[in-house]
């Protein structure tokens, strides 16, 4: 069995370089379809960040080099989260490169997102690589649960939390 087929549905997170973080996922569809789902607002609205009460308040994509994209999600309590950027490269259906900036940034500086679409046997491997301005920033993002080193501290944290109800039922 080829490894791509085996990996359908499994999210892989890796660090290709000091300043990068990559997410890889295989989809059971041709890449032109996955590319469209990644770049067309009417399709993005169906899957990206829409869960629970969160829906898109703004979903705009000007898919050309120098064109901007702008996403704003709104939750039931009126909370909003926005982000956007500028496209630097578009090679349909192979690759997009864009800048990424959050309205309420949780890391410093701009990041560059490169997303590639590789098709094999009707299945598409989509890889999104985020390049941060420095190793320090990338490492700060890595303090999130995204890699195993942190999974360890998370395990520890789970232990700590498991012990809490015993004494803080007040």
């Amino acid at each position: 069995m080829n490894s791509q087929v085996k990996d359908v549905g499994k999210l892989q997170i890796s660090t290709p370089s000091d300043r990068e973080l990559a997410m890889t996922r295989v989809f059971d569809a041709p890449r032109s379809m996955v590319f469209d789902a990644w770049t067309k607002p009417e399709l993005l609205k169906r899957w990206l960040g829409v869960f629970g009460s969160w829906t898109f308040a703004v979903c705009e994509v000007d898919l050309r080099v120098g064109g901007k994209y702008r996403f704003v999600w709104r939750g039931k309590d009126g909370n909003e989260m926005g982000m956007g950027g500028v496209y630097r490269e578009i090679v349909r259906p192979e690759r997009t490169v864009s800048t990424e900036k959050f309205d309420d940034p949780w890391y410093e500086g701009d990041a560059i997102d490169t997303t590639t679409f590789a098709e094999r046997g009707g299945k598409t491997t989509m890889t999104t690589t985020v390049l941060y301005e420095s190793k320090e920033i990338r490492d700060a993002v890595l303090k999130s649960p995204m890699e195993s080193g942190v999974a360890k501290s998370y395990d520890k944290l789970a232990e700590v939390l498991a012990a809490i109800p015993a004494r803080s039922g007040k």
Partner: protein
Amino acid sequence: MAPRHLDATFAALADPTRRAILARLATGEASVTELAAPFKISQPAISKHLKVLERAGLISRGRDAQRRPRRLEAKPLAEATEWLERYREYWEGNYQRLDALLEELKTKKTKRTSTRR
């Protein structure tokens, strides 16, 4: 993504000694001396760790002015854990919705092709 106030929490949790201190405090409040006992490091070093934990809101000081026992504050920990868990879940959820959408698009495409025939 990660709310800004969690930065201090994550930074505080990044250190194994501080996580061990939290694990100890999860079993009940303790004085600085008691907290320092299991570690091979000096009491001032422990105090430094406690300051970091305190600034992150992960621990607080008890009322006993003599012992000044530290105790665990459950809320920021719970928030941090929740965020940690949600991050991966967030992307896994996105991609699962995308799977469903792609299935739908494929079905539509097949239908279109077969009607054309």
